[in-house]
């Protein structure tokens, strides 16, 4: 893709360019582990990579301390403990408030398909600690957690509606001015679906404000960029669960996210039941029954891309039409290998 494409008429805000000329050097990158996933920061100017990494690490440490449901000392865990015996409230930190706001925004965008109150349901499903620990204690020697192909929807057992363990995002009361949060009894807020993506957006903004050049922030596959573009844009691979690059797309300011039913999986307590995956359908409290192995979306922010890709997994057959209606360019990879795209997502590379 050439930079001339950026001059094409569009309704979307174009990437910010602190300088007119693209960066001449190839982007530099570095990886690090945090918040339970692999992360990568890329910069167009080599001298900014170190400071950019430091900013990213610092922000993710703040995020983890505020909203990790796996840390007993986090604000999320503290609020959940208070809510065990009745409704509870707290004045929360600015970090918690920001990410709760983003989580509720994702819920609004998706009509509640991405719901920050599914924490207790995830715990009931066995996802109550870091995923590596969950997998270790329920390991089945005959299957690989990363390569499980889930049974198609027709083979799944019927599921109950409206599980009691999910209060629903509308039950959370949040005043962004005072940063006061009220949670119903039994609520465990889980921002895993949105906070990682929102953090990519936040860090990209922080980097652009603090440093010269261009930046791409990849937090476990949730990707946001800011500042100047490298020549030709950011080349971003759409990766399958087994590590194959299915397609490389050129990012020119869009954010990207992939939601997968094949990667964050763990064995059910009942060996006769299909494995769990981490995308819960709030309507059932169970792992979403879906035909999609993964869905990749582009949007104006990683938060929106993540919300769209997560909702698409849950929407199953209705996903392509819903994505198109919301103007989300997307690539949907089905369990049977079929690939579906929505308007705005091109499979063929330009000559």
């Amino acid at each position, binding site marked *: 893709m050439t930079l001339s494409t950026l001059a094409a008429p569009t309704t979307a805000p174009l990437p910010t360019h602190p300088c007119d000329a693209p960066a001449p050097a190839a982007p530099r990158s570095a990886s690090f582990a945090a918040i339970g996933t692999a992360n990568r920061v890329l910069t167009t100017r080599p001298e900014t990579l170190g400071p950019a990494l430091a900013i990213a690490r610092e922000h993710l440490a703040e995020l983890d301390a505020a909203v990790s449901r796996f840390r007993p000392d986090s604000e999320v865990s503290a609020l959940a403990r208070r809510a065990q015996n009745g*409704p509870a409230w707290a004045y929360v930190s600015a970090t918690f408030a920001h990410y709760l706001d983003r989580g509720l925004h994702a819920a609004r965008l998706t009509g509640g398909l991405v719901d920050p109150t599914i924490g207790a349901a995830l715990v009931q499903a066995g996802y109550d600690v870091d995923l590596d620990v969950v997998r270790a204690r329920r390991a089945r020697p005959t299957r690989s957690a990363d390569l499980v192909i889930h049974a198609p929807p027709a083979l799944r057992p019927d599921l109950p509606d409206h599980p009691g363990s999910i209060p629903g995002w509308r039950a959370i009361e*949040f005043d962004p001015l005072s940063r006061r949060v009220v949670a119903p009894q039994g609520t465990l807020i889980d921002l895993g679906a949105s906070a990682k993506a929102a953090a990519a957006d936040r860090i990209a903004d922080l980097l652009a404000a603090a440093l010269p050049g261009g930046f791409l922030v990849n937090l476990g596959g949730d990707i946001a960029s800011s500042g100047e573009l490298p020549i030709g844009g950011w080349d971003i691979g759409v990766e399958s669960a087994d590590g194959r690059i299915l397609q490389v797309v050129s990012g020119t300011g869009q954010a990207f996210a992939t939601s997968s039913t094949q*990667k964050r999986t763990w064995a059910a307590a009942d060996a006769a039941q299909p494995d769990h995956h981490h995308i819960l359908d709030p309507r059932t409290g169970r792992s979403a029954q879906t035909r999609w192995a993964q869905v990749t979306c582009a949007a104006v922010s990683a938060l929106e891309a993540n919300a769209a890709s997560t909702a698409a997994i849950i929407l199953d057959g209705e996903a392509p039409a819903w994505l198109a209606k919301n103007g989300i360019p997307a690539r949907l990879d089905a369990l049977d290998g079929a690939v579906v795209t929505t308007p705005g997502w091109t499979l063929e590379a330009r000559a």
Partner: protein
Amino acid sequence: MTRIPALDKARRFTVAGVVAAALSSGAITLHLADAGSTSASTVAVTTSGSNSSSDTTSSGSTSSSDFGSTTSVQSSTGNAQTTTAGS
């Protein structure tokens, strides 16, 4: 038929509404107080507790309810600099 997300007008409110709700609940006083706190944990520990129905304040946020529009996505002939691995 799955419900298509729509603008949630019932939960939207104006900034004036937020201020009014905060003033009526006394939350604005506490907000100003915790502005001087030095850590998040201090705020959470000293100003939280059990809730009663009269404690509730306004909820929601001022964010838009619609996805923003973005430019189209083109395939690249280059090698991937990073990947959007599924999560």
